[in-house]
């Protein structure tokens, strides 16, 4: 075999399952477009304080310069919600983390010429980075830091009008936060309020922007909870079979025939003051049945394949076989299901807020739609409605792209 032929053989051998799926996915224009759209959405979620905040970037009063925007980012008094703190941390660290990641990836790349080894090290590094990020987030979110309350924008405009005080400031493009009240109730779309004002005298555009954070975090966390539960239960059933399987399948069937939206509503109504974390937990604990069934099916299929038999023959522990051999091969369909699940979870949360059982302290889209329903104001109906619609359809398109990419029959 010539040198070049050998290389080709090696390279094609080097293609992992993920590579193949990703290659297929890239050929699907619509799905790629949706993936870009989703990235923009995540970008908005992370960087929305740059677009809208009560606090000016720079504030110069009587010759003294302060930076209220930066100090507000981790202020539990200003951003009451830990979801906001999380995204703010992501925003602050996004650029340094990206640089670190690129540099480290380069270094690993030069050290490991073999693709799989390189991937393995990079994978560990990613997990480490993520763990460090979460640890930092937990550390920051326990801090209580309170800045004295000050109405910067009012003071600034007042000073400009009166020409009295010497104040200059640099504001974000929209100089209000999502909790800022006091505008004209139900005011329509104007230059000052891009999407109008809601019934509770808050700016709608800002609430839509910050609502991205709520929607995405609800979707992702709730789905992570139920994917974890579902994979554990489903793989137990599928791998062990026999009585375990029968019992679990029965249990899943029973769980599936209880209308979950009704249970979610009932459970949330019993909680004194539901927060978004309650909503995440409740959705996460009730929607695992689909994932469990899927994982079980995949396990049943994979269990009888040769590579599992050989792993058993080699005397590997059950845990190792499940987590290292079978599970990675079963995860494809679960991932597709999870993508659709994120869309469904966002819909569920909007439904809950629409029905008035959501967390009232967060800028949820469904809550604005509810105000639109009760007042009949078009801008309150269309803005959140389309926000939900776009997010859900982008996620569904991406999910579909993954499903097609996983399907060998559709391979191009």
């Amino acid at each position, binding site marked *: 075999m010539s040198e070049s032929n050998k290389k080709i053989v090696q390279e094609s051998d080097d293609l992992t399952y993920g590579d193949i799926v990703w290659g297929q996915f890239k050929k699907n224009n619509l799905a790629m477009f949706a993936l870009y759209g989703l990235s923009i959405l995540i970008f908005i979620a992370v960087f929305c304080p740059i677009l809208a905040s009560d606090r000016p970037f720079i504030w110069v009063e009587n010759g003294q310069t302060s930076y209220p925007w930066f100090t507000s980012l981790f202020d539990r008094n200003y951003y009451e919600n830990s979801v906001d703190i999380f995204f703010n941390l992501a925003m602050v660290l996004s650029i340094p983390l990206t640089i670190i990641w690129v540099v480290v990836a380069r270094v690993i790349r030069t050290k490991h010429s073999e693709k799989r080894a390189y991937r393995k090290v990079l994978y560990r590094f990613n997990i480490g980075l993520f763990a460090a990020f979460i640890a930092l987030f937990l550390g920051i979110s326990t801090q209580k830091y309170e800045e004295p309350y000050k109405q910067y924008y009012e003071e600034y405009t007042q000073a400009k009008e009166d020409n009295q005080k010497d104040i200059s400031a640099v504001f974000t493009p929209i100089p209000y936060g999502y909790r800022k009240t006091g505008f004209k109730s139900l005011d329509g779309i104007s230059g000052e309020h891009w999407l109008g004002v809601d019934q509770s005298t808050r700016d709608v555009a800002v609430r839509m922007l910050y609502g991205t954070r709520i929607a995405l975090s609800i979707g992702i966390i709730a789905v992570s909870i139920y994917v974890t539960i579902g994979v554990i239960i489903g793989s137990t059933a599928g791998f062990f079979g026999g009585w375990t399987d029968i019992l679990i399948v*029965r*249990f899943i*069937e*029973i*769980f*599936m*025939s*209880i*209308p*979950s*939206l*009704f*249970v979610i*509503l*009932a*459970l949330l*109504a*019993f*909680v*004194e003051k539901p927060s978004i974390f309650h909503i995440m937990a409740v959705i996460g604990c009730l929607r695992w049945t689909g994932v469990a069934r899927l994982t079980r099916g995949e396990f049943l299929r994979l269990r009888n394949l040769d590579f599992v038999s050989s792993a058993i023959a080699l005397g590997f522990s059950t845990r190792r076989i499940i987590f290292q051999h079978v599970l990675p091969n079963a995860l494809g369909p679960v991932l597709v299901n999870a993508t659709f699940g994120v*869309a469904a979870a966002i*819909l569920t949360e*909007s*439904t809950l807020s*629409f*029905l008035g059982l959501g967390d009232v302290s967060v800028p949820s889209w*469904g809550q604005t*739609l509810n105000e*639109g*329903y009760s007042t*009949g104001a*078009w801008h309150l*109906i*269309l803005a*959140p*409605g389309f926000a*939900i*619609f776009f997010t*859900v*359809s982008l996620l*569904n*398109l991406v999910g579909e792209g993954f499903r097609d990419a996983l399907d060998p029959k559709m391979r191009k």
Partner: protein
Amino acid sequence: MLFYIIKRMLLIIPTFLAISLIVFAIVNFAPGNPGGRQIGSEGGQQANTGEQRESYRIFKEQFNLDKPVILNFRYNLTKDEVVDVLAKVLNPVIEIDGKEEKEYGLGEQIESQEYLENLGRYAVPSLMEILNTHPEVEYRALASQRLTINARQRLQGEFRKDLTKAQRETNKKISDETASFKGQYFLALSPEDAEDAESKTEEEVKEFWNPWYEQNKTDWEYSTGDIFSITFTDTRFAKYWYNLSQLNFGVSHRDKRPVLETVLSKLKYSLTLAVTSVFLAYLISLPLGIWSAVNHNSKADRAVTVVLFMLYSLPSFFVGVVLLNLLTVEYRIFPTAGFESLNASEMTTLEYIKDVMWHVFLPICCMTYASLAALSRYAKTGLLDIINADFIRTARAKGLPESVVIIKHAARNGMIPILTLIATLLPVLIGGSIVIEQIFGIPGMGRYGFEAILTRDYNVVMAILLISSLLTLIGMLISDILYAIVDPRITFD
């Protein structure tokens, strides 16, 4: 086949039992006591006036909320336990670091008051002992006050109308006894106040209670059988199963009407919506799916796919609100709310049908479009899988016309997966109907259930959870049977 159907139907019974177990767990172990929550509306905790307390106590008895959840050990209640509870109820002021403070928090005090009330007749022997032997007068006084309430017997079949003659007579005796308890207590007052007070003195009270207790002492001498039956049957769990086996879902605390009756009357509206929209969805999506599978990848097919995809992603409550605002508020084409007009009873049948159709048009549109989108996509992929199969090529080779090939050969096989979707559609529709019924003001089951959730109407929530689960089970059964009928390859042995 018949054997399979029977087996499949029998399977519903254990499944339903398990569901009712889960429903019981959800309602009883969910954070916050569903019964305790309605205190606001029933005027329980805050209200200390006798009447309100009494109505709250009756409410608790009615819903068995005074009983322990799973096991009842109240038969071996000791005097010391009751003294502890009384201490919390009395909540004496004590000195902590020189400051005068109440020993227990207000929450704990209210909780113990509740608990004491819930103990009912089980507390009587201990209360008697306290009345006679406790050194502190406050405790003896409180014990006498509690006795007038705790010693009461429950009326038989209290919340029913159909009583036998014997039951009525016992009830009469019980109410006479209860009436005799009235005023048989004393207050812990200083001697000079006690002279003015209208209540009885301690001696008088004891003179009443001690003979009464001697007379009825056997009520609290439990045999092993009694202990067994109390432990397992005088609980919320047992009462729940008992009521369920009688198909008795209790009464709603809002309108005091039997839950089952109300739910059944509301089911009419919800089923009209759900069944019509499932029917319409299948009616439109099957031909649509077949059409787009036949014209796969044509321009028209792509356009339809995109439109269907958009419909699939549109949240139904958004569409509902838009339609409502546009067609009923702005243009007034459709009525804003309700299932029928107010003068529905005066209409002829034809007029009535027209009227109902006019009312439910928008809600049905909202409920149909989402399932329509999902179904036709499944129909298309199902048919595409089949259309390349060998037997289709054979059918074409035989010279059969294309329409026969598609409809008779391909569609019949390709549509099998669609049938199973009925099972998944039903719970979604029942869940979705909460939102749609809420938006369009349809007085159906979803809306009734949602309002019950908001007002913590314990019995209604349980009944609706159970009934909608049962409907879902029936949906699954139907789809399984249809599956077996359509696909002759499936045998169930």
